């Protein structure tokens, strides 16, 4: 029983880290533009699928990962330039629909490029499980955890210690005020989309050896990342990370002890419960409506 619990926790934290990375992307974009980017999951999918294709084309894995991430960052910037900027200041419903449209569009491109087959990456450092007591850990899980921790620390430092990070935060608090103190809001917006796309792509490449990837793989990952960001209180990067880990662990425990078929239902029921009792997430700002 205890061994099982430990095993489920390890799995949950691995999956949760991926949700956390995707959620972090949501938070970054939301902070800069008040937009929830429903195409975030497609960044994850594009990262994984591009890396797989490049590897198959003969590139070594590290290079394939770097090139794939770069390509997805460019996709993110194009999305910002051609779909978000023209609709700046539109209603919440409008931006939700635009990004859903973008997600479907990107999925369509992926399907044309790579068909409907499932593909996967080889694990970065072999697939000999590491034994810890009676539980086992795949080396790939360590990669996922390590990169996530590193990125979270970097994001934290970026927002706390660098001028650019502080400028980005300023945009999220009040865009007009940020503009008045000389911050180029447009550049910040592009930065946020680029970073967010990059995070998504990295998450996709990291998880590709564990789960199979296909043109549709981004849908659930994106939704879970969105859930992570919402549970944590949208626009709070560390909240998104905590939300992602919580969601991953809960899902894994639910799959292990209750039913694996219902794991998605358990995850989303948890999100619903959080929202019913804390309508702005666990660590969200309490806001008042301005008339």
């Amino acid at each position, binding site marked *: 029983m205890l061994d099982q619990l430990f095993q489920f926790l390890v799995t949950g934290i691995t999956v949760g880290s991926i949700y956390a990375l995707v959620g972090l992307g949501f938070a970054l974009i*939301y902070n800069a533009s008040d937009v*929830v980017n429903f195409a975030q999951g497609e960044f994850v999918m594009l990262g994984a699928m591009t890396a797989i294709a490049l590897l198959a084309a003969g590139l070594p894995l590290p290079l394939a990962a770097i090139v794939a991430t770069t390509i997805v960052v460019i996709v993110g910037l194009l999305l910002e330039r051609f*779909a978000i900027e*023209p*609709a700046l200041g*539109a*209603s*919440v*419903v*409008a931006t*939700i*629909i*635009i990004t*859903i*449209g*973008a*997600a*479907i*569009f*990107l*999925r*369509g*491109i992926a*399907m*044309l490029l790579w068909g409907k087959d499932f593909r996967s990456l080889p694990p970065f450092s072999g697939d000999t499980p590491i034994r810890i007591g009676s539980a086992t850990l795949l080396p790939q899980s360590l990669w996922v955890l390590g990169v996530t921790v590193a990125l979270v620390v970097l994001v934290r430092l970026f927002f706390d210690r660098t001028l650019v990070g502080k400028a980005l935060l300023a945009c999220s608090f009040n865009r007009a005020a940020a503009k008045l103190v000389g911050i180029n809001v447009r550049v910040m917006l592009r930065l946020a989309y680029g970073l967010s796309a990059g995070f998504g792509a990295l998450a996709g490449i990291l998880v590709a050896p564990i789960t199979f990837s296909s043109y549709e793989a981004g*849908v659930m990952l994106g*939704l879970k990342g*969105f*859930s992570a960001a*919402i549970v944590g209180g*949208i626009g709070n990067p560390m909240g998104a990370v905590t939300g992602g880990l919580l969601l991953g662990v809960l899902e894994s425990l639910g799959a292990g002890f209750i*039913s694996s*078929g*219902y794991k*998605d*239902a358990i995850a*989303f*029921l948890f*999100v*619903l419960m959080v*929202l*019913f009792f804390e*309508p*702005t*997430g666990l660590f969200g700002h309490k806001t008042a*409506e301005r*008339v």
Partner: protein
Amino acid sequence: MRLAGFYVFAVAIILLPILFQDNYFVTVVGISAGLHVILAVGLNLLMGYAGQISLGHAAFFGMGAYASGILTTRYAWPAPLAMFAGLTVVGLIAWLLARPILRLHGHYLAMATLGFGIVVHVIMVQATHWTGGPDGLSGIPTLDLFGWPVDSDLRWYAVVAAAMLLAIWLSLNLIDSRIGRALRAVHGSEFAAQMLGIDTGRTKTQVFVVSALFAAFAGSLFAHQQGFVSPDSFSLMVSVELVTMVVLGGMASTFGAACGAIALTLLHAGLVVFEDYEMLIHGALLMAVMIFMPQGLFVGLDQAVRRLLRRSGN
């Protein structure tokens, strides 16, 4: 005069099968378009008029369909009774959900409705004992209206057309009623509406329940017409498509939603040939409409025509 548009539309719907007899696009695609119109008009009440987004509307559609399917096949209930039971259950669930869900705003509301839709979909797939699981539920009997079996495409066209016209008529009247005015006030500013003495919580709950009932009604008709239901027909993608219909036609316009539903259904039927490009076109369309014509195609065209008329009048 207020319902002039409605009468014109009704006459067109009645004339279609007479002008184009045995036409695939009228009877077969028409039935599907009619069901979509009911769904879109119902969703528009919530989205267009009350300004509350729902990314889980396929759940109510599915619950209506499964209620009819399960009760008629597993318990041999007569179809009308099953339909009524389904509507009651869906109405009750929507009423229970409305308060906590509609307390949320913007993205939080989008998340909650989306989550609800996924939970319901997972149950449809997993509760095999009741729903037949991923394989679905087959052998659902067709409707029998007082000894008149609805057993041909043309008869189904008539039933769905009647149901659709009823839905549009209800929606048009609801919007012009006290509730409709309260709804539009809520859309403008919930806070200001409260100041004017509108019980915004109650108004939103009412419209949420009505919207869910429209969807469940369409679902029940869908189950009897197809004779088969499976979870695929009620996935997240379907919820997104319903939102697309409302947005495509134009939010806060009953005929806008109806036109959006018909346009998207025809588009899908026409794009079957280009199956691989369907997603690409669907996505591009959503983005383009929202960026360049945020008020929707129908409403946008309507305004353009009015502007032209005014100019030629001068």
